[in-house]
């Protein structure tokens, strides 16, 4: 009986720790510019804030919880600004519409649509990033 209770409590703990936790008391803003290979701003490019959190279960040691916490589009000059709640996962900017990054910005391994956001560089909850050059995939 004692073992059953411990197992049940462990299972509950795993369920709660696997989920991405969002903090409604802290909101971050990321802003920057999306351009093509000729440095022309790209309008109406869809962007998501993509959060990923690895976790392990008894059955699978390499599971990942994923969520899109905010979405936006670039304006006519290619500028964008997205505000999203703080989370306990890795945060990426996800390019929509079949675009991928073509310059040297750090991207998630094997996926040029994902640009990792370095939240250590936040200044007063604002992250300003360099121009991102993209191309159609």
């Amino acid at each position, binding site marked *: 009986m004692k073992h059953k209770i411990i197992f049940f409590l462990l299972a509950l703990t795993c369920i709660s720790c696997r989920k991405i936790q*969002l903090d409604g008391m*802290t909101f971050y803003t990321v802003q920057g510019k999306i351009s093509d290979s000729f440095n022309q701003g790209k309008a109406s490019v869809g962007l998501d804030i993509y959060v990923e959190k690895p976790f392990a279960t008894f059955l699978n040691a390499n599971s990942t919880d994923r969520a899109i916490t905010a979405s936006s589009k670039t304006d006519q000059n290619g500028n964008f600004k997205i505000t999203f709640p703080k989370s306990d996962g890795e945060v990426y900017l996800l390019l929509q519409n079949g675009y991928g990054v073509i310059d040297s910005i750090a991207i998630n391994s094997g996926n040029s649509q994902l640009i990792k956001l370095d939240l250590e560089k936040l200044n007063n909850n604002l992250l300003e990033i360099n121009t991102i050059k993209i191309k159609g995939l």
Partner: protein
Amino acid sequence: MKKYLLMALLLNSPFAQAQKEAFDSDNLSSFSIGAGYKSFIGNNFLAKTYNNQISFVYDFRLYKKWGAGTFYRTTQAKPFTNQYVGNSVYARTTELGFYATYYQKINGRWLFSPKVGFSTFLLKNQLRSPYQSDYYNYFTRGTNFFIAPEINYFITKGLRVFANTEYGFINMPRVTANKTATGTSYNVANQLNFGIGIKVGF
């Protein structure tokens, strides 16, 4: 003769009795339920994100000439933009508070009862994952100081209807965001609530 009979009937009618007893009674303790129409106002993320909402309130008060009460109010809203709080698809606010009140009989069956109070303010946003059938809640907390003039009408001695207007000052000092980048405040907001309901006295 008919005239006197009609007068006697009117004076002994339940409504006349209710009016008389309402005026005689000093004990106006009550429990009430009501609905309202709430909107956030001002340059803040609440006003810029959420539509006007229907609110529901449960209220309990103890009365003599002065009174005190406690209430619980909940509202549901759908964000009309994801610009300030992310991809929330559903939001709910709950307030749990207390207040001081005073009553002033006006005439007939009318009673004026202004309130001043304080409550917690909790905003729950819910985000759904496109990857799995899961959802994520995130909470924004603050406090609310409010003033609320209220008018009551006695249907019978123990039953009243009421209407009120409440203006609240929401304070969320622990919320952090970049005000320059977002162009709005995350720390202070105002809310206006028009409420009606029914009150049972005891």
